[in-house]
C-alpha cells in the first residue's frame, strides 16, 4: 500500500461524548472494510488540526477508538473534503479502509474504555494549530475487523472546557497495508 491523506474542511467542531455514538458529520473516521482480510493493518502517521473559530474556543480534540463500530456504508465524501493517495497513481492499488464523516446506518460509538488509547490533540481553535507526527514505530495502529481496533475517530470531546465553537480544518495521513 501507500500513504494517503484524509482531509476535511468545516466538519470538525461539534462536541461528542465518550461512550456515545458520535453525531454525524462532526468527526473524521477511518474504518477497516469488512471485505478485507482480518490481517489488514493501518498506521496513522500524522494528524494536523488548524482552528477556524472566529472567537476564542477550546477544542478538546482526541483521536480515539470506537467501542462499537459504525454500520452501513460510509457516505461518499463531498468536496472540499477528500481522501486520496500521496502517490498520484495510487487509485489502482485500492484501499482497504473507509474514510468518512458519516455512515448510512449508525455512527461509531467513541470508546470510553480506560484500556483504549486516546491521543490528546487539544488546542485553542481561534487561530491555533496542532500537529502530531508519530515517532518511528510509535504510529497509531488499527487492525482487524472488530471493535475497537478496526475503527478510529477524530473529534471534539466533551469535558475539560471543550467548546462546540472550536471549529477546525484537519488532515490525517495514514497508510493501510
Amino acid at each position, binding site marked *: 500500500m501507500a500513504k494517503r491523506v484524509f482531509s476535511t474542511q468545516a466538519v470538525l467542531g461539534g462536541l461528542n461524548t465518550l461512550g456515545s455514538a458520535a453525531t454525524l458529520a462532526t468527526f473524521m473516521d477511518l474504518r477497516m472494510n469488512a471485505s478485507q482480510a482480518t490481517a489488514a493493518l493501518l498506521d496513522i502517521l500524522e494528524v494536523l488540526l488548524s482552528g477556524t473559530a472566529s472567537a476564542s474556543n477550546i477544542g478538546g480534540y482526541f483521536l480515539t477508538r470506537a467501542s462499537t463500530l459504525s454500520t452501513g456504508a460510509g457516505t461518499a465524501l463531498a468536496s472540499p473534503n477528500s481522501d486520496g493517495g500521496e502517490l498520484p497513481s495510487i487509485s489502482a492499488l485500492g484501499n482497504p479502509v473507509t474514510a468518512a464523516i458519516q455512515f448510512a446506518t449508525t455512527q461509531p460509538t467513541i470508546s470510553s474504555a480506560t484500556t483504549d488509547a486516546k491521543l490528546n490533540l487539544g488546542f485553542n481553535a481561534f487561530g491555533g494549530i496542532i500537529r502530531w507526527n508519530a*515517532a518511528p514505530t510509535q504510529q497509531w495502529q488499527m487492525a482487524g475487523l472488530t471493535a475497537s481496533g478496526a475503527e478510529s475517530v477524530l473529534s471534539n470531546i466533551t469535558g475539560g472546557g471543550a467548546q462546540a465553537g472550536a471549529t477546525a480544518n484537519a488532515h490525517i495521513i495514514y497508510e493501510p497495508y
Partner: protein
Amino acid sequence: MTVFLKTSHDGELMVDHRASPGFTPEQARYFGFPPELVGEGKQMHAPTLGCPHCGSHVVLNPMRKRPRAHCLQCNQYICDICDQVRSESGYVHRNMKEIRDLLATGKWQMRGTMSKPVLVPKTGE
C-alpha cells in the same frame, strides 16, 4: 553507512498559539501541556518518544530540567516509570520485542505490569 542519532527515534507534537489566545493555565494543565508554552502567542515544539520497555508513547516536556533515563542495553530513551522499576530487586531486562517474541511462542504467559512484566511458563495446558 546509516547514522542513527538519539533524535532518530523522535516524533513531534507542535502546538501553535502564536495567533491565538491559547490555553489558560488551568486548561493547559487539564490537557497535560506545560502552561508556559501553550498560552497566548506561544508555540510549543515537543519531541515524542516511545519507551522500548513498556511501549508507552511520551510527550517530552520541554520545560523539564531533570535528566531523562537512558537504557544502555536498548541504547534508547526509557520512560520514568520504567526507569524507577529497573532499580527494583528481581528486575529482568526485557524490551517489547523480546516480550512479544516470547509470548508468540505460546509457551509463556505474562503477568505484572508492562513496566515490570513477569513471564511465567504455561503449564498443564
